[in-house]
């Protein structure tokens, strides 16, 4: 019997340029921030207790999704055709088409939310937008995962990229989207707080800094969820078929291992978690201000989230080996 060998037939397209990993990262993060904006708004009640946070989240969603969308468009060989997607995209089984429409729904919501906050048009219209924003945000984060794994689903149970497993990747991207969204909001909140005295606008966002600690704690919970999910995924791969085992090997011991261990496990999960613990210790027990540690943590979460997308995109090039027929001695 001929030993199975991975044959990497794909010559990288998505992994070679930064467009797709950045898009997946920014898209997921935008989903996260818009959900945070809506939740903060809804939970803040009539007193608009978390209005500073909600505003920050809504404002930053815009540039994030714009940059992300540009990255998506410019990875296309023919961007001009891509921009006119409603005309061109006709295959509604394709996640690219579905995704096009999700972005098409998401973007106006994000714009509306920011505009409504900026002009303070009263609560009712905002709440409608908020309620719509939650599924849109979750949708876009999940979709970035389906975009990858959907090629599997759509091609009818064919599983050429074992890493891009529909059972794991969309949820992973959703969790990571939330985590990075929280980190982005926390980071901006801290920064705003830092400059709080400097003007009217800042004034309106005043007090955001206080939420940073809470955001960090929530993020830590999300990180635990993310870590558990990745663990589940790897455990399943380790016990899976040839293709999954191959992916498991390359991810944990092979070419992608440094990126996975340092980029994902350390930067996105372990170190932020540690930072959180230390921060709680410093602030709650020793009563020492530790904003700097929060900065570091949020930055690590962001960097880790980006590297996670890289690892997953690169890992998509690992193909399930098409088995050679058994070799017999004639």
């Amino acid at each position: 019997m001929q030993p199975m060998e991975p044959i990497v037939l794909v010559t990288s397209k998505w992994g070679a340029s930064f467009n797709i990993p950045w898009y997946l990262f920014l898209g997921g993060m935008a989903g996260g921030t818009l959900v945070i904006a809506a939740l903060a708004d809804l939970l803040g009640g009539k007193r608009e207790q978390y209005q500073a946070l909600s505003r920050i989240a809504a404002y930053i969603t815009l540039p994030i999704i714009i940059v992300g969308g540009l990255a998506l468009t410019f990875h296309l060989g023919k961007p001009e055709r891509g921009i006119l997607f409603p005309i061109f995209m006709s295959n509604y089984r394709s996640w690219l088409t579905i995704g096009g429409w999700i972005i098409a729904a998401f973007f106006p919501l994000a714009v509306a939310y920011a505009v409504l906050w900026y002009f303070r048009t009263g609560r009712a219209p905002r709440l409608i937008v908020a309620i719509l924003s939650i599924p849109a945000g979750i949708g876009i984060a999940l979709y970035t995962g389906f975009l990858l794994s959907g090629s599997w689903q759509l091609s009818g149970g064919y599983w050429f990229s074992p890493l891009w497993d529909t059972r794991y990747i969309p949820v992973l991207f959703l969790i990571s989207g939330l985590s990075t969204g929280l980190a982005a909001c926390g980071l901006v909140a801290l920064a705003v707080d830092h400059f709080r005295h400097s003007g009217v606008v800042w004034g309106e966002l005043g007090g955001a800094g206080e939420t940073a600690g809470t955001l960090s704690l929530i993020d830590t919970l999300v990180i635990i969820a993310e870590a558990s999910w990745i663990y589940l995924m790897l455990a399943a791969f380790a016990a899976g078929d040839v293709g999954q085992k191959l992916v498991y090997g390359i991810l944990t011991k092979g070419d992608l291992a440094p990126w996975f261990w340092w980029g994902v496990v350390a930067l996105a999960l372990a170190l932020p978690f540690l930072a959180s613990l230390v921060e709680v210790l410093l602030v709650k027990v020793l009563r020492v201000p530790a904003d700097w540690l929060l900065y570091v943590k949020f930055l690590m979460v962001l960097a880790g989230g980006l590297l996670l997308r890289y690892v997953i995109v690169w890992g998509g090039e690992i193909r399930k080996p098409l088995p050679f027929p058994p070799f017999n001695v004639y």
Partner: protein
Amino acid sequence: MALTTARMKFYIDAKRCIECGGCEVACKNENNVPQGIARIRVVTVNEGQPGETNIAVPCMHCSKAPCVAVCPVDALYTRPDGIVHVNKETCIGCGYCLYACPFGAPQFPKGEPFGARGVMDKCTYCAGGPDEPFSEKERRFYGSNRIAEGKLPMCASVCSTKALVAGDAEEVAKVVRARAVARGSGVGAWGWETAYPTGPRL
């Protein structure tokens, strides 16, 4: 062979290919394929060691082709004779088909990371494209149209060891069967089950 029922297939015999590269060069020459693009390429495993095996991989023109399923703009489509074509005038160059394809068949011109990288190109089964057969446009976009001329694909025609067999499914199946019988076991039909699955797909 009634034309209406013809269904084109490739048989890649992993026990015969000697990595002579004839198919690759003939394809490029026949279809005037741009530099850096290989519509068919030979992959070797265990080079220089026992078990050394070569396979030449074109587009298999899969039944229920995964690439067709994922293409957002329906630029990919399956002709009645099973040949999978890309319409270069609608393709947006997203690269999605490449990730759906088990054989890595779709090809993209190399370009700078920022600039447009153009549309997808892949093996046409030497059957031109959606344009008027033998038109200048078809030739420029897709290369030759040997199928319309009643000829076999170029790569299979030149294959030195008949490792690459092309033609109507029934004819190809005969070759596969004959070799299976001769060898006792192991037809060496690499990728066959993946490209032409017998069971239904989801």
